[in-house]
């Protein structure tokens, strides 16, 4: 979430109430934990553990009034969405919960909370305090989305024109005849792309939509978990989880070392009709080139046949970008404003090479496009370099949200910790 006020809140009485709440939030002196919550941060930044939810905290959204909503991947004590309220010291308490479904998507916009299961998308009306009016009455916006046994997350975001964007991940690695099986060829005209492997656009305020009422906005995206609307150039940006197992499935073409560094995790700037090329291609960050996938006749050396969307930026392989947030706050130094934070969940697909990720990166932007080299922003969610290398991370960053004061919140879907990163705060 960002501090875009809803039309609802611009109502007369509501404005006064929310402005007071906003002021009380920003006047709070937030104290970072003495150890910065175990994180390694750039100079001047501090961090605190806001709450331990004990659930698989996927995406997170914060209202302009500072109410924190956390989507759990699996229902805990009958609740799939947790509600957190901040305390004066900047920490928060889980006050209640609702929604009897697991999932990933959580987003706040224009007086509504949006949530997704792995099949459906719901919305809940918020009142002028940022509280859900009736937790028992989620309105079903979209139903019957395709889900398999991988890439199930239906991540969501809205634009400024009342459109809802939903990721429908491909339920395969590379659309092989036999998924993830050594030497199995790709299916021509991959049928998965009819109903998955892309971003679907729906109306944000129309109930009971199915595929027929939506539009396949962009295709050729294997799995997107992190996505956000870029307010600078009014464009949808997504982070793709790149394909796995080049060596396992094509040992004659790729060494295990190559498999650990191919392909890049890519950021795409999407427009209606974009085709990023999955499953036919992958992006080689060393060659800086879109390559033909081995399931479709590629050999690791042949550039892609066909014209596909080039990535806007590329990141190391297999690090699993699960959260994307354009920072619009004023708390952080100027260089962060309008840039993108990316939560990298961490790899599994690099063995026998060391695993990597488990951190939040920052990608500078200029005029709405990536500009300059990305950098590690918040590191050591795993707990140690050894835990990163082995993949036995203590915490795994997943969701990102911006608080009303410009704090950056990070959710962890391993232990359920909610982090808050602040700048220039006194300990």
């Amino acid at each position, binding site marked *: 979430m960002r501090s875009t006020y809803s039309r609802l809140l611009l109502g007369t009485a509501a404005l006064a109430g929310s402005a007071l709440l906003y002021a009380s939030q920003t006047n709070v002196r937030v104290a970072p934990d003495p150890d910065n919550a175990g994180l390694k941060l750039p100079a001047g930044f501090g961090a605190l553990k806001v709450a331990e939810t004990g659930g698989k905290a996927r995406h997170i959204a914060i209202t302009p009034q500072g109410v924190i909503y956390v989507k759990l991947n699996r229902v805990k004590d009958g609740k799939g969405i947790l509600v957190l309220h901040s305390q004066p010291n900047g920490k928060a308490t889980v006050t209640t919960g609702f929604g009897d479904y697991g999932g990933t998507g959580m987003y706040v916009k224009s007086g509504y909370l949006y949530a997704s299961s792995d099949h459906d998308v719901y919305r809940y009306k918020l009142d002028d305090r940022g509280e859900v009016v009736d937790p028992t009455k989620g309105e079903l916006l979209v139903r019957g989305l395709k889900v398999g046994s991988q890439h199930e997350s239906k991540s969501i975001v809205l634009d400024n024109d009342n459109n809802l964007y939903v990721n429908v991940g491909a339920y395969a690695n590379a659309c092989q005849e036999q998924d993830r099986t050594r*030497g199995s060829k790709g299916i021509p005209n991959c049928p998965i792309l009819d109903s998955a492997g892309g971003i679907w656009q729906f109306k944000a305020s129309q109930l009971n939509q199915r595929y027929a009422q939506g539009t396949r906005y962009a295709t050729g995206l294997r799995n997107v978990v992190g996505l956000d609307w870029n307010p600078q150039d009014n464009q949808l940006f997504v982070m793709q989880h790149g394909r796995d*197992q080049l060596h396992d499935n094509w040992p004659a073409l790729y060494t295990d070392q190559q498999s650990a560094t191919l392909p890049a995790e890519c950021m795409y700037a999407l427009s209606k009709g974009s085709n990023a090329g999955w499953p036919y291609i992958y992006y080689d960050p060393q060659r800086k080139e879109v390559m033909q996938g081995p399931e479709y006749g590629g050999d690791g050396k042949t550039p892609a046949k066909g014209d596909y969307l080039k990535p806007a930026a590329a990141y190391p392989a297999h690090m699993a970008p699960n959260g994307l947030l354009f920072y619009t706050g004023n708390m952080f130094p100027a260089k962060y404003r309008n840039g993108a934070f990316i939560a990298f969940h961490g790899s599994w697909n690099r063995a026998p090479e060391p695993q990597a990720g488990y951190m939040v990166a920052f990608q500078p932007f200029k005029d709405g496009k990536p500009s300059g080299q990305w950098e590690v922003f918040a590191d050591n969610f795993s707990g140690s370099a050894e835990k990163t290398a082995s*993949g036995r991370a203590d915490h795994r960053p997943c969701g990102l949200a911006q608080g009303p004061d410009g704090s950056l919140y990070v959710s962890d879907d391993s232990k359920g910790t909610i982090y808050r990163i602040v700048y220039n705060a006194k300990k």
Partner: protein
Amino acid sequence: MIFSKQVFLGIALLAGAGLTLQAQHRPTPKAAKTPAKAAAADPTLAASLTRGAVVYKNVCITCHQADGGGLPPINPPLIKTQYVLGDKARLSHIVLAGLAEPIEIDGEEYKQHMPAQAYLTDQQIADVLTYVRNSFGNKASAVQVAEVKAVRATLK
């Protein structure tokens, strides 16, 4: 997906024949250890373990990891679970035919498809399963080539 109804049925039957899988303890993964001391006194077993380690590194390690701990909630662990330590025919079947349905170990659901590895020889499968059953803190009897061969015959 691709797996035939017959294969599903086969897996279901084999699973049904196995032990109850609830309430299994998932231990903390440890670094890979040298497999059981018994190998020292049994050159046949020792040779199988050595060959099995190579197969594991080439075929299994990406998903199940160097320490056999897998990766919740995607790839299941191979440590002290009845899927590994229990019925050898069921275990061989998973390698030969794959596993396309979610399984639950110690309250965690694992969903990623295990692809069939039928291109491995009976010897390679016997070796890697013997290795897995005697690594990562596991200790169980060796898998024989004849046992793998018998399961493969049911798939043709």
